[in-house]
Protein backbone atom coordinates (compact mmCIF):
# COMPACT_ATOMS: atom_id res chain seq x y z
CA UNK A 1 0.00 0.00 0.00
CA UNK A 2 1.00 3.60 -0.43
CA UNK A 3 2.77 5.06 2.59
CA UNK A 4 1.40 8.40 3.75
CA UNK A 5 4.59 9.09 5.68
CA UNK A 6 7.97 7.47 5.26
CA UNK A 7 8.00 6.48 8.93
CA UNK A 8 5.24 4.00 8.12
CA UNK A 9 7.94 1.83 6.56
CA UNK A 10 8.66 0.65 10.07
CA UNK A 11 5.27 -1.08 10.16
CA UNK A 12 6.53 -3.55 7.55
CA UNK A 13 9.07 -6.19 8.48
CA UNK A 14 10.75 -9.30 7.10
CA UNK A 15 11.62 -10.58 3.66
CA UNK A 16 9.14 -13.05 2.23
CA UNK A 17 9.69 -15.70 -0.36
CA UNK A 18 6.69 -17.06 -2.24
CA UNK A 19 7.45 -20.74 -2.78
CA UNK A 20 7.07 -22.19 -6.28
CA UNK A 21 4.75 -25.16 -5.90
CA UNK A 22 4.30 -27.24 -9.03
CA UNK A 23 4.33 -30.89 -10.09
CA UNK A 24 3.51 -31.77 -6.47
CA UNK A 25 6.63 -30.34 -4.89
CA UNK A 26 8.46 -27.19 -3.89
CA UNK A 27 10.67 -26.25 -6.84
CA UNK A 28 14.41 -25.48 -6.54
CA UNK A 29 13.90 -21.80 -7.41
CA UNK A 30 12.37 -21.42 -3.94
CA UNK A 31 15.66 -22.33 -2.24
CA UNK A 32 17.48 -19.93 -4.56
CA UNK A 33 15.13 -17.13 -3.49
CA UNK A 34 15.64 -18.05 0.17
CA UNK A 35 19.38 -17.83 -0.49
CA UNK A 36 18.89 -14.36 -1.99
CA UNK A 37 16.57 -13.24 0.81
CA UNK A 38 18.92 -14.24 3.64
CA UNK A 39 21.49 -11.42 3.29
CA UNK A 40 18.68 -8.92 2.67
CA UNK A 41 16.96 -9.93 5.92
CA UNK A 42 20.28 -9.84 7.76
CA UNK A 43 20.95 -6.33 6.47
CA UNK A 44 17.51 -5.29 7.72
CA UNK A 45 17.95 -7.23 11.00
CA UNK A 46 14.77 -9.12 10.20
CA UNK A 47 13.63 -12.61 9.21
CA UNK A 48 13.15 -14.66 6.07
CA UNK A 49 9.64 -16.08 5.79
CA UNK A 50 8.75 -18.58 3.13
CA UNK A 51 5.09 -18.94 2.14
CA UNK A 52 4.07 -22.32 0.76
CA UNK A 53 0.67 -22.77 -0.86
CA UNK A 54 0.34 -26.42 -1.84
CA UNK A 55 -1.15 -29.74 -0.93
CA UNK A 56 0.36 -32.86 0.56
CA UNK A 57 3.60 -30.99 1.22
CA UNK A 58 6.39 -33.20 2.57
CA UNK A 59 7.84 -32.21 5.97
CA UNK A 60 11.27 -32.91 4.53
CA UNK A 61 10.79 -30.07 2.05
CA UNK A 62 9.65 -27.67 4.74
CA UNK A 63 12.67 -28.52 6.87
CA UNK A 64 14.90 -27.96 3.87
CA UNK A 65 13.54 -24.42 3.56
CA UNK A 66 14.67 -23.77 7.13
CA UNK A 67 18.04 -25.46 6.68
CA UNK A 68 18.66 -23.26 3.63
CA UNK A 69 17.92 -19.99 5.40
CA UNK A 70 14.23 -19.51 6.25
CA UNK A 71 13.29 -18.45 9.78
CA UNK A 72 9.56 -18.96 9.40
CA UNK A 73 7.74 -21.22 6.98
CA UNK A 74 4.10 -20.27 6.55
CA UNK A 75 2.16 -23.20 5.14
CA UNK A 76 -1.32 -23.51 3.74
CA UNK A 77 -1.75 -27.16 2.85
CA UNK A 78 -5.05 -27.43 1.05
CA UNK A 79 -6.47 -29.42 -1.88
CA UNK A 80 -7.49 -26.07 -3.38
CA UNK A 81 -3.86 -25.72 -4.42
CA UNK A 82 -3.66 -29.01 -6.32
CA UNK A 83 -3.78 -27.07 -9.59
CA UNK A 84 -2.77 -23.52 -10.32
CA UNK A 85 -5.75 -21.21 -9.85
CA UNK A 86 -4.29 -17.70 -9.94
CA UNK A 87 -7.29 -16.10 -8.28
CA UNK A 88 -7.33 -18.43 -5.25
CA UNK A 89 -3.61 -18.13 -4.63
CA UNK A 90 -3.70 -14.35 -5.05
CA UNK A 91 -6.54 -14.02 -2.59
CA UNK A 92 -4.75 -16.07 0.08
CA UNK A 93 -1.42 -14.36 -0.44
CA UNK A 94 -3.03 -10.91 -0.27
CA UNK A 95 -4.71 -11.85 3.02
CA UNK A 96 -1.39 -13.06 4.45
CA UNK A 97 0.39 -9.91 3.32
CA UNK A 98 -2.26 -7.70 4.88
CA UNK A 99 -2.05 -9.61 8.13
CA UNK A 100 1.73 -9.92 8.50
CA UNK A 101 2.94 -6.85 6.57
CA UNK A 102 6.20 -8.06 5.04
CA UNK A 103 8.69 -5.44 3.90
CA UNK A 104 9.53 -7.30 0.68
CA UNK A 105 8.13 -10.25 -1.24
CA UNK A 106 10.25 -12.28 -3.67
CA UNK A 107 8.74 -14.72 -6.15
CA UNK A 108 10.12 -16.95 -8.88
CA UNK A 109 9.78 -15.50 -12.39
CA UNK A 110 8.20 -18.75 -13.53
CA UNK A 111 5.07 -19.05 -15.65
CA UNK A 112 3.01 -19.36 -12.46
CA UNK A 113 4.90 -16.65 -10.55
CA UNK A 114 4.65 -14.21 -13.42
CA UNK A 115 0.89 -14.74 -13.59
CA UNK A 116 0.26 -14.66 -9.84
CA UNK A 117 2.41 -11.90 -8.43
CA UNK A 118 1.34 -8.99 -10.69
CA UNK A 119 -2.20 -9.73 -9.57
CA UNK A 120 -1.12 -9.65 -5.93
CA UNK A 121 0.88 -6.43 -6.44
CA UNK A 122 -2.15 -4.63 -7.86
CA UNK A 123 -4.51 -5.99 -5.23
CA UNK A 124 -2.18 -4.97 -2.39
CA UNK A 125 -1.51 -1.67 -4.17
CA UNK A 126 2.23 -1.86 -4.41
CA UNK A 127 5.09 -1.99 -6.91
CA UNK A 128 6.62 -5.01 -8.60
CA UNK A 129 9.85 -5.42 -10.53
CA UNK A 130 10.18 -8.35 -12.93
CA UNK A 131 13.17 -10.60 -13.54
CA UNK A 132 15.64 -9.05 -11.11
CA UNK A 133 19.20 -10.25 -11.47
CA UNK A 134 20.50 -8.46 -8.40
CA UNK A 135 18.86 -7.49 -5.11
CA UNK A 136 20.45 -5.37 -2.42
CA UNK A 137 19.51 -3.12 0.48
CA UNK A 138 20.30 0.57 0.16
CA UNK A 139 22.40 1.23 3.29
CA UNK A 140 21.11 4.80 3.51
CA UNK A 141 17.39 4.18 3.72
CA UNK A 142 16.83 0.44 3.81
CA UNK A 143 15.02 0.35 0.45
CA UNK A 144 15.31 -2.72 -1.72
CA UNK A 145 17.48 -1.99 -4.77
CA UNK A 146 16.11 -4.12 -7.58
CA UNK A 147 18.31 -4.44 -10.66
CA UNK A 148 17.03 -5.95 -13.86
CA UNK A 149 18.07 -6.11 -17.49
CA UNK A 150 16.14 -3.78 -19.79
CA UNK A 151 16.09 -3.45 -23.57
CA UNK A 152 16.99 -7.06 -24.19
CA UNK A 153 19.89 -6.93 -21.76
CA UNK A 154 21.50 -3.86 -23.32
CA UNK A 155 20.95 -1.88 -20.16
CA UNK A 156 20.71 -2.61 -16.44
CA UNK A 157 18.04 -0.60 -14.63
CA UNK A 158 17.95 -0.26 -10.85
CA UNK A 159 14.48 0.23 -9.48
CA UNK A 160 13.12 1.50 -6.18
CA UNK A 161 9.72 1.18 -4.61
CA UNK A 162 10.24 3.87 -1.98
CA UNK A 163 6.74 4.96 -1.04
CA UNK A 164 4.88 1.68 -1.21
CA UNK A 165 5.13 -1.53 0.81
CA UNK A 166 5.74 -4.37 0.43
CA UNK A 167 8.41 -4.13 -2.23
CA UNK A 168 7.89 -6.98 -4.69
CA UNK A 169 10.29 -8.59 -7.11
CA UNK A 170 10.47 -11.67 -9.28
CA UNK A 171 13.70 -13.52 -10.01
CA UNK A 172 14.26 -16.10 -12.74
CA UNK A 173 15.27 -19.64 -11.84
CA UNK A 174 19.05 -20.18 -11.65
CA UNK A 175 19.87 -16.50 -11.30
CA UNK A 176 20.40 -16.66 -7.51
CA UNK A 177 22.21 -19.40 -5.62
CA UNK A 178 20.74 -21.55 -2.87
CA UNK A 179 22.81 -21.78 0.30
CA UNK A 180 24.09 -25.20 1.34
CA UNK A 181 21.64 -26.70 3.85
CA UNK A 182 22.59 -26.35 7.50
CA UNK A 183 20.69 -28.98 9.51
CA UNK A 184 21.42 -27.15 12.76
CA UNK A 185 19.52 -24.03 11.70
CA UNK A 186 16.41 -23.43 13.76
CA UNK A 187 13.16 -22.12 12.40
CA UNK A 188 9.43 -22.46 12.75
CA UNK A 189 6.73 -23.96 10.61
CA UNK A 190 3.40 -22.21 11.05
CA UNK A 191 0.30 -23.99 9.82
CA UNK A 192 -3.39 -23.67 10.06
CA UNK A 193 -3.50 -20.13 11.38
CA UNK A 194 -4.58 -18.94 7.99
CA UNK A 195 -7.87 -17.80 6.56
CA UNK A 196 -10.18 -20.49 5.30
CA UNK A 197 -9.47 -21.22 1.68
CA UNK A 198 -12.33 -21.29 -0.76
CA UNK A 199 -11.60 -22.06 -4.34
CA UNK A 200 -12.40 -19.31 -6.81
CA UNK A 201 -15.70 -19.95 -8.56
CA UNK A 202 -14.61 -18.18 -11.73
CA UNK A 203 -12.07 -20.80 -12.78
CA UNK A 204 -11.76 -24.58 -12.87
CA UNK A 205 -8.71 -26.52 -14.02
CA UNK A 206 -10.08 -29.40 -16.08
CA UNK A 207 -6.97 -31.32 -17.11
CA UNK A 208 -3.23 -31.19 -16.49
CA UNK A 209 -0.58 -32.52 -18.86
CA UNK A 210 3.07 -32.92 -18.00
CA UNK A 211 5.37 -32.57 -20.94
CA UNK A 212 6.88 -35.89 -21.88
CA UNK A 213 9.45 -34.55 -24.30
CA UNK A 214 12.79 -34.29 -22.52
CA UNK A 215 15.18 -31.45 -23.12
CA UNK A 216 12.58 -28.80 -23.88
CA UNK A 217 12.51 -27.03 -20.53
CA UNK A 218 14.67 -24.07 -21.48
CA UNK A 219 13.69 -21.86 -18.55
CA UNK A 220 15.12 -24.26 -15.98
CA UNK A 221 18.05 -25.52 -18.01
CA UNK A 222 21.55 -24.99 -16.69
CA UNK A 223 23.12 -25.97 -20.01
CA UNK A 224 21.53 -25.20 -23.38
CA UNK A 225 22.79 -26.65 -26.64
CA UNK A 226 21.26 -24.54 -29.41
CA UNK A 227 21.29 -24.89 -33.18
CA UNK A 228 20.89 -22.54 -36.14
CA UNK A 229 20.89 -22.90 -39.90
CA UNK A 230 24.36 -24.45 -39.69
CA UNK A 231 22.78 -27.55 -38.14
CA UNK A 232 21.34 -28.23 -41.62
CA UNK A 233 18.33 -30.33 -40.64
CA UNK A 234 16.57 -32.66 -38.26
CA UNK A 235 19.53 -35.02 -38.24
CA UNK A 236 21.79 -32.23 -37.04
CA UNK A 237 19.47 -31.54 -34.14
CA UNK A 238 19.67 -35.21 -33.15
CA UNK A 239 23.39 -34.66 -32.73
CA UNK A 240 22.73 -31.61 -30.52
CA UNK A 241 20.17 -33.60 -28.55
CA UNK A 242 22.67 -36.39 -27.92
CA UNK A 243 25.19 -33.97 -26.47
CA UNK A 244 22.53 -32.09 -24.47
CA UNK A 245 21.35 -35.34 -22.88
CA UNK A 246 24.93 -36.23 -21.91
CA UNK A 247 25.46 -32.92 -20.12
CA UNK A 248 21.94 -32.82 -18.63
CA UNK A 249 20.96 -29.88 -20.79
CA UNK A 250 18.13 -28.72 -23.02
CA UNK A 251 18.02 -28.02 -26.74
CA UNK A 252 17.44 -24.51 -28.09
CA UNK A 253 16.93 -23.35 -31.66
CA UNK A 254 16.94 -20.25 -33.86
CA UNK A 255 13.76 -19.06 -35.60
CA UNK A 256 14.96 -20.13 -39.04
CA UNK A 257 15.30 -23.75 -37.94
CA UNK A 258 11.82 -23.74 -36.43
CA UNK A 259 10.44 -22.23 -39.68
CA UNK A 260 12.21 -24.96 -41.61
CA UNK A 261 10.42 -27.58 -39.53
CA UNK A 262 13.62 -29.07 -38.12
CA UNK A 263 12.48 -28.67 -34.50
CA UNK A 264 9.24 -27.62 -32.71
CA UNK A 265 8.53 -24.03 -31.67
CA UNK A 266 8.85 -24.90 -27.96
CA UNK A 267 12.63 -24.88 -28.50
CA UNK A 268 12.82 -21.42 -30.07
CA UNK A 269 15.06 -18.92 -28.30
CA UNK A 270 14.80 -15.21 -29.04
CA UNK A 271 12.42 -12.32 -29.28
CA UNK A 272 9.35 -14.33 -30.25
CA UNK A 273 10.55 -17.49 -28.57
CA UNK A 274 11.87 -17.83 -25.05
CA UNK A 275 14.35 -15.67 -23.19
CA UNK A 276 16.86 -17.91 -21.47
CA UNK A 277 19.44 -17.34 -18.77
CA UNK A 278 21.34 -20.60 -18.48
CA UNK A 279 24.87 -21.00 -17.14
CA UNK A 280 26.09 -22.28 -20.48
CA UNK A 281 24.71 -21.49 -23.93
CA UNK A 282 26.42 -23.53 -26.61
CA UNK A 283 25.45 -22.03 -29.98
CA UNK A 284 26.06 -24.39 -32.90
CA UNK A 285 25.94 -22.82 -36.34
CA UNK A 286 23.87 -19.82 -35.21
CA UNK A 287 24.85 -16.63 -37.01
CA UNK A 288 23.24 -14.51 -34.31
CA UNK A 289 20.47 -12.25 -35.61
CA UNK A 290 19.65 -9.55 -33.09
CA UNK A 291 16.24 -11.12 -32.44
CA UNK A 292 18.03 -14.28 -31.34
CA UNK A 293 20.74 -12.54 -29.32
CA UNK A 294 18.26 -10.63 -27.13
CA UNK A 295 16.86 -13.96 -26.00
CA UNK A 296 20.15 -15.42 -24.80
CA UNK A 297 22.73 -12.74 -24.19
CA UNK A 298 22.18 -12.81 -20.44
CA UNK A 299 23.50 -16.39 -20.21
CA UNK A 300 26.63 -16.65 -18.05
CA UNK A 301 28.93 -18.39 -20.48
CA UNK A 302 28.28 -18.27 -24.21
CA UNK A 303 30.12 -20.72 -26.42
CA UNK A 304 29.86 -20.64 -30.21
CA UNK A 305 30.89 -23.27 -32.72
CA UNK A 306 31.00 -22.04 -36.32
CA UNK A 307 33.15 -22.39 -39.40
CA UNK A 308 32.86 -18.65 -39.92
CA UNK A 309 34.74 -16.74 -37.17
CA UNK A 310 33.06 -13.42 -38.01
CA UNK A 311 29.38 -14.01 -37.21
CA UNK A 312 27.61 -11.87 -34.59
CA UNK A 313 27.36 -14.91 -32.36
CA UNK A 314 31.08 -15.61 -32.58
CA UNK A 315 31.74 -11.98 -31.67
CA UNK A 316 29.43 -12.15 -28.65
CA UNK A 317 30.67 -15.50 -27.35
CA UNK A 318 33.03 -15.92 -24.41
CA UNK A 319 34.49 -19.07 -25.90
CA UNK A 320 34.58 -19.75 -29.64
CA UNK A 321 35.46 -22.85 -31.58
CA UNK A 322 36.29 -22.17 -35.20
CA UNK A 323 35.38 -25.41 -36.89
CA UNK A 324 32.77 -27.67 -38.40
CA UNK A 325 30.12 -28.49 -35.83
CA UNK A 326 29.63 -31.88 -37.49
CA UNK A 327 33.20 -32.70 -36.52
CA UNK A 328 33.44 -30.87 -33.20
CA UNK A 329 30.16 -32.10 -31.65
CA UNK A 330 30.79 -35.83 -32.29
CA UNK A 331 34.26 -35.33 -30.83
CA UNK A 332 32.77 -33.63 -27.74
CA UNK A 333 30.34 -36.54 -27.39
CA UNK A 334 33.18 -39.04 -27.72
CA UNK A 335 35.40 -37.29 -25.20
CA UNK A 336 32.62 -36.80 -22.63
CA UNK A 337 31.60 -40.45 -22.94
CA UNK A 338 35.10 -41.75 -22.19
CA UNK A 339 35.64 -39.59 -19.10
Amino acid at each position, binding site marked *: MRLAKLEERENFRNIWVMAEWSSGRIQPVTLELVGAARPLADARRSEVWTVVLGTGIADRQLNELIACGSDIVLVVDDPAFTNFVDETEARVLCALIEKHRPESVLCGATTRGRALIPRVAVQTNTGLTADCTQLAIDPENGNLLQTRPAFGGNLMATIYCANFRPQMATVRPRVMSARPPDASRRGRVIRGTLPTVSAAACKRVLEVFHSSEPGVNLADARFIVAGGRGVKG*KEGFNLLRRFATMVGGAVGAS*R*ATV*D*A*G*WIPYAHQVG*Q*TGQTVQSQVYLACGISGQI*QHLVGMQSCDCIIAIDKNPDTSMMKLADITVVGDLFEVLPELIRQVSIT
Partner: protein
Amino acid sequence: MKEHIEKRAYHVEILPPKQDSAKLDADLAGFAEKYQRVMASGFCACITDNAMGHLAFQGPEVLEELRLSVPPGQVMIHLNTFHTKESLDEILVTCRRQGIRHLLVISGDGSDRLPKLQPADVGATDVEAVTSVELLRYIHRQYPGDFETGVAFNPYEPPEHEFEKLVRKCAAGATFVITQPVIEKHPVVDQLLATTTLPIVLEAWMSKKLHLLSQAVGYEIPEDTPFDPIATLRMLHQTYPACGMYLSLLGFKTQYDLIRDTWSVPTSKETR
Protein backbone atom coordinates in the same frame (compact mmCIF):
# COMPACT_ATOMS: atom_id res chain seq x y z
CA MET B 1 8.80 -18.38 -71.16
CA LYS B 2 10.44 -19.41 -74.41
CA GLU B 3 8.56 -16.63 -76.20
CA HIS B 4 9.91 -14.06 -73.70
CA ILE B 5 13.42 -15.00 -74.73
CA GLU B 6 12.56 -15.17 -78.41
CA LYS B 7 10.96 -11.74 -78.26
CA ARG B 8 14.02 -10.52 -76.35
CA ALA B 9 11.84 -9.28 -73.52
CA TYR B 10 13.72 -8.47 -70.35
CA HIS B 11 12.42 -9.60 -66.99
CA VAL B 12 12.47 -6.49 -64.85
CA GLU B 13 12.19 -6.85 -61.09
CA ILE B 14 9.87 -4.42 -59.30
CA LEU B 15 9.43 -4.30 -55.54
CA PRO B 16 5.92 -3.57 -54.32
CA PRO B 17 5.55 -0.99 -51.49
CA LYS B 18 6.53 -2.14 -48.02
CA GLN B 19 3.93 -2.61 -45.30
CA ASP B 20 5.66 -0.14 -42.98
CA SER B 21 6.08 2.53 -45.62
CA ALA B 22 5.73 6.05 -44.25
CA LYS B 23 4.83 7.33 -47.73
CA LEU B 24 2.53 4.67 -49.08
CA ASP B 25 0.85 6.90 -51.69
CA ALA B 26 4.17 7.94 -53.17
CA ASP B 27 5.39 4.34 -53.18
CA LEU B 28 2.22 3.18 -54.93
CA ALA B 29 2.61 5.91 -57.53
CA GLY B 30 6.27 4.97 -58.03
CA PHE B 31 5.31 1.34 -58.47
CA ALA B 32 2.67 2.23 -61.06
CA GLU B 33 5.12 4.36 -63.02
CA LYS B 34 7.76 1.63 -63.18
CA TYR B 35 5.18 -0.99 -64.05
CA GLN B 36 3.78 1.07 -66.89
CA ARG B 37 7.22 1.70 -68.36
CA VAL B 38 7.94 -2.02 -68.33
CA MET B 39 4.60 -2.74 -69.97
CA ALA B 40 5.18 -0.07 -72.63
CA SER B 41 8.54 -1.66 -73.47
CA GLY B 42 6.89 -5.02 -73.98
CA PHE B 43 9.03 -6.46 -71.18
CA CYS B 44 7.92 -8.70 -68.32
CA ALA B 45 7.49 -7.16 -64.85
CA CYS B 46 8.58 -9.47 -62.03
CA ILE B 47 7.04 -8.55 -58.68
CA THR B 48 8.74 -9.80 -55.53
CA ASP B 49 7.11 -11.49 -52.54
CA ASN B 50 8.26 -10.06 -49.20
CA ALA B 51 11.83 -9.92 -50.50
CA MET B 52 14.48 -10.55 -47.82
CA GLY B 53 11.70 -11.22 -45.32
CA HIS B 54 10.62 -7.55 -45.34
CA LEU B 55 6.86 -7.26 -45.18
CA ALA B 56 5.46 -5.79 -48.38
CA PHE B 57 2.15 -5.77 -50.19
CA GLN B 58 1.42 -8.50 -52.70
CA GLY B 59 1.79 -7.81 -56.42
CA PRO B 60 -1.73 -8.91 -57.43
CA GLU B 61 -3.48 -6.76 -54.78
CA VAL B 62 -1.38 -3.74 -55.74
CA LEU B 63 -2.23 -4.18 -59.42
CA GLU B 64 -5.88 -4.53 -58.53
CA GLU B 65 -5.93 -1.50 -56.23
CA LEU B 66 -4.12 0.65 -58.81
CA ARG B 67 -6.34 -0.75 -61.60
CA LEU B 68 -3.29 -1.63 -63.68
CA SER B 69 -4.04 -3.94 -66.55
CA VAL B 70 -2.07 -7.13 -67.15
CA PRO B 71 -1.11 -7.60 -70.81
CA PRO B 72 -0.86 -11.35 -71.55
CA GLY B 73 2.53 -12.77 -70.55
CA GLN B 74 3.93 -9.50 -69.27
CA VAL B 75 3.69 -10.09 -65.53
CA MET B 76 5.41 -12.64 -63.32
CA ILE B 77 5.03 -12.77 -59.56
CA HIS B 78 7.32 -14.36 -57.03
CA LEU B 79 5.57 -16.72 -54.67
CA ASN B 80 7.33 -18.09 -51.61
CA THR B 81 6.48 -20.43 -48.74
CA PHE B 82 5.87 -17.70 -46.14
CA HIS B 83 2.10 -17.34 -46.27
CA THR B 84 -0.97 -18.63 -44.53
CA LYS B 85 -2.97 -21.06 -46.64
CA GLU B 86 -5.74 -18.46 -46.91
CA SER B 87 -3.44 -15.78 -48.26
CA LEU B 88 -1.70 -18.22 -50.62
CA ASP B 89 -5.01 -19.16 -52.19
CA GLU B 90 -6.13 -15.56 -52.31
CA ILE B 91 -2.96 -14.62 -54.21
CA LEU B 92 -3.39 -17.47 -56.67
CA VAL B 93 -7.07 -16.78 -57.26
CA THR B 94 -6.34 -13.09 -57.79
CA CYS B 95 -3.56 -13.96 -60.26
CA ARG B 96 -5.90 -16.21 -62.19
CA ARG B 97 -8.57 -13.54 -62.29
CA GLN B 98 -6.06 -10.95 -63.51
CA GLY B 99 -4.53 -13.24 -66.11
CA ILE B 100 -1.11 -13.50 -64.48
CA ARG B 101 0.30 -16.80 -65.74
CA HIS B 102 3.93 -16.75 -64.68
CA LEU B 103 5.00 -17.59 -61.15
CA LEU B 104 8.52 -17.81 -59.78
CA VAL B 105 8.13 -20.34 -56.98
CA ILE B 106 10.78 -20.08 -54.27
CA SER B 107 11.28 -21.04 -50.65
CA GLY B 108 11.88 -17.40 -49.73
CA ASP B 109 13.08 -15.63 -46.62
CA GLY B 110 11.12 -15.63 -43.40
CA SER B 111 10.90 -13.21 -40.53
CA ASP B 112 9.31 -13.20 -37.11
CA ARG B 113 6.21 -11.66 -38.62
CA LEU B 114 5.79 -13.88 -41.68
CA PRO B 115 3.70 -17.02 -41.37
CA LYS B 116 5.21 -20.20 -42.80
CA LEU B 117 3.12 -22.62 -44.85
CA GLN B 118 2.74 -25.89 -42.99
CA PRO B 119 2.95 -29.26 -44.78
CA ALA B 120 -0.74 -29.93 -44.11
CA ASP B 121 -1.67 -26.60 -45.77
CA VAL B 122 -0.38 -27.83 -49.11
CA GLY B 123 -1.37 -31.46 -48.66
CA ALA B 124 2.18 -32.69 -48.08
CA THR B 125 2.48 -35.62 -45.73
CA ASP B 126 6.04 -36.78 -46.24
CA VAL B 127 8.00 -33.64 -45.34
CA GLU B 128 8.88 -31.66 -42.22
CA ALA B 129 8.74 -28.27 -43.91
CA VAL B 130 7.30 -26.78 -47.08
CA THR B 131 9.85 -25.94 -49.76
CA SER B 132 9.34 -24.73 -53.31
CA VAL B 133 8.84 -28.36 -54.37
CA GLU B 134 5.75 -28.86 -52.20
CA LEU B 135 4.44 -25.45 -53.20
CA LEU B 136 4.85 -26.29 -56.91
CA ARG B 137 2.98 -29.57 -56.48
CA TYR B 138 0.19 -27.78 -54.66
CA ILE B 139 -0.17 -25.09 -57.34
CA HIS B 140 -0.32 -27.58 -60.21
CA ARG B 141 -2.72 -29.85 -58.33
CA GLN B 142 -5.11 -27.13 -57.15
CA TYR B 143 -4.88 -24.85 -60.17
CA PRO B 144 -4.20 -27.23 -63.06
CA GLY B 145 -3.27 -25.49 -66.28
CA ASP B 146 -3.52 -22.00 -64.79
CA PHE B 147 0.14 -21.24 -64.26
CA GLU B 148 3.55 -21.56 -65.83
CA THR B 149 5.97 -21.98 -62.96
CA GLY B 150 9.68 -21.24 -62.72
CA VAL B 151 12.20 -21.98 -60.01
CA ALA B 152 15.45 -20.55 -58.68
CA PHE B 153 18.88 -22.00 -59.34
CA ASN B 154 21.90 -20.99 -57.30
CA PRO B 155 25.24 -21.55 -59.09
CA TYR B 156 27.09 -20.69 -55.88
CA GLU B 157 25.74 -23.64 -53.91
CA PRO B 158 27.41 -27.05 -54.17
CA PRO B 159 26.36 -28.06 -57.75
CA GLU B 160 25.54 -31.68 -57.01
CA HIS B 161 22.97 -30.68 -54.39
CA GLU B 162 21.62 -27.85 -56.55
CA PHE B 163 21.14 -30.04 -59.62
CA GLU B 164 19.46 -32.71 -57.53
CA LYS B 165 17.03 -30.07 -56.23
CA LEU B 166 16.41 -28.86 -59.79
CA VAL B 167 15.42 -32.35 -60.85
CA ARG B 168 12.86 -32.49 -58.04
CA LYS B 169 11.57 -29.01 -58.86
CA CYS B 170 11.09 -29.99 -62.51
CA ALA B 171 9.32 -33.18 -61.49
CA ALA B 172 6.99 -30.98 -59.44
CA GLY B 173 6.08 -28.93 -62.50
CA ALA B 174 8.71 -26.23 -63.01
CA THR B 175 9.15 -25.26 -66.66
CA PHE B 176 11.72 -22.48 -66.50
CA VAL B 177 14.71 -21.50 -64.36
CA ILE B 178 15.95 -18.17 -63.03
CA THR B 179 19.46 -18.06 -61.56
CA GLN B 180 21.07 -16.05 -58.79
CA PRO B 181 23.03 -13.04 -60.09
CA VAL B 182 25.62 -14.05 -62.69
CA ILE B 183 28.49 -11.58 -63.10
CA GLU B 184 30.87 -13.53 -65.32
CA LYS B 185 31.05 -16.72 -67.33
CA HIS B 186 30.45 -19.38 -64.73
CA PRO B 187 31.18 -23.11 -65.05
CA VAL B 188 28.05 -24.14 -63.15
CA VAL B 189 25.89 -21.99 -65.45
CA ASP B 190 27.58 -23.69 -68.42
CA GLN B 191 26.76 -27.03 -66.85
CA LEU B 192 23.16 -25.94 -66.31
CA LEU B 193 22.82 -24.96 -69.99
CA ALA B 194 24.33 -28.26 -71.05
CA THR B 195 22.06 -30.42 -68.91
CA THR B 196 18.62 -28.89 -69.25
CA THR B 197 16.39 -28.01 -72.13
CA LEU B 198 14.24 -25.68 -70.05
CA PRO B 199 14.40 -21.94 -70.78
CA ILE B 200 17.06 -20.34 -68.56
CA VAL B 201 16.93 -16.75 -67.37
CA LEU B 202 20.08 -15.31 -65.79
CA GLU B 203 19.80 -12.70 -63.08
CA ALA B 204 21.79 -9.65 -64.10
CA TRP B 205 22.86 -7.47 -61.19
CA MET B 206 22.08 -3.88 -62.19
CA SER B 207 23.40 -2.17 -59.06
CA LYS B 208 26.89 -0.71 -59.04
CA LYS B 209 27.31 -2.01 -55.49
CA LEU B 210 28.82 -5.36 -56.29
CA HIS B 211 29.83 -5.99 -52.68
CA LEU B 212 26.16 -6.50 -51.80
CA LEU B 213 26.51 -9.84 -53.56
CA SER B 214 29.19 -11.08 -51.16
CA GLN B 215 26.78 -13.26 -49.23
CA ALA B 216 25.06 -14.61 -52.35
CA VAL B 217 28.27 -15.66 -54.06
CA GLY B 218 29.88 -16.88 -50.85
CA TYR B 219 33.08 -14.87 -50.94
CA GLU B 220 33.95 -11.37 -49.81
CA ILE B 221 33.71 -8.72 -52.54
CA PRO B 222 35.48 -5.51 -51.40
CA GLU B 223 33.20 -2.52 -51.01
CA ASP B 224 35.00 -0.36 -53.60
CA THR B 225 35.08 -2.98 -56.37
CA PRO B 226 34.32 -1.17 -59.64
CA PHE B 227 31.39 -2.68 -61.51
CA ASP B 228 29.67 -1.63 -64.72
CA PRO B 229 26.23 -3.29 -64.81
CA ILE B 230 25.41 -2.32 -68.40
CA ALA B 231 28.72 -3.61 -69.75
CA THR B 232 28.25 -6.80 -67.76
CA LEU B 233 24.76 -7.20 -69.20
CA ARG B 234 26.13 -6.92 -72.75
CA MET B 235 28.81 -9.46 -71.85
CA LEU B 236 26.15 -11.87 -70.53
CA HIS B 237 24.16 -11.57 -73.76
CA GLN B 238 27.27 -12.42 -75.78
CA THR B 239 28.34 -15.25 -73.50
CA TYR B 240 24.89 -16.75 -73.02
CA PRO B 241 22.87 -15.78 -76.13
CA ALA B 242 20.21 -18.42 -75.50
CA CYS B 243 19.34 -17.09 -72.06
CA GLY B 244 16.81 -14.53 -70.91
CA MET B 245 17.88 -11.82 -68.50
CA TYR B 246 16.30 -10.93 -65.18
CA LEU B 247 17.29 -7.41 -64.22
CA SER B 248 17.40 -6.84 -60.47
CA LEU B 249 17.84 -3.42 -58.84
CA LEU B 250 17.47 -1.71 -62.19
CA GLY B 251 17.66 2.09 -61.90
CA PHE B 252 14.61 3.39 -63.73
CA LYS B 253 15.90 6.95 -63.80
CA THR B 254 19.47 6.30 -64.85
CA GLN B 255 19.56 2.90 -66.55
CA TYR B 256 16.22 2.22 -68.15
CA ASP B 257 16.89 4.13 -71.34
CA LEU B 258 20.35 2.58 -71.62
CA ILE B 259 19.08 -0.99 -71.87
CA ARG B 260 16.96 -0.29 -74.97
CA ASP B 261 19.61 -1.59 -77.32
CA THR B 262 21.59 -3.97 -75.12
CA TRP B 263 19.54 -6.87 -76.43
CA SER B 264 18.75 -5.88 -79.97
CA VAL B 265 15.72 -7.24 -81.74
CA PRO B 266 16.63 -10.30 -83.77
CA THR B 267 16.68 -9.90 -87.51
CA SER B 268 14.72 -12.47 -89.46
CA LYS B 269 17.94 -14.39 -90.28
CA GLU B 270 19.02 -14.60 -86.71
CA THR B 271 16.69 -17.33 -85.54
CA ARG B 272 17.59 -20.00 -83.06
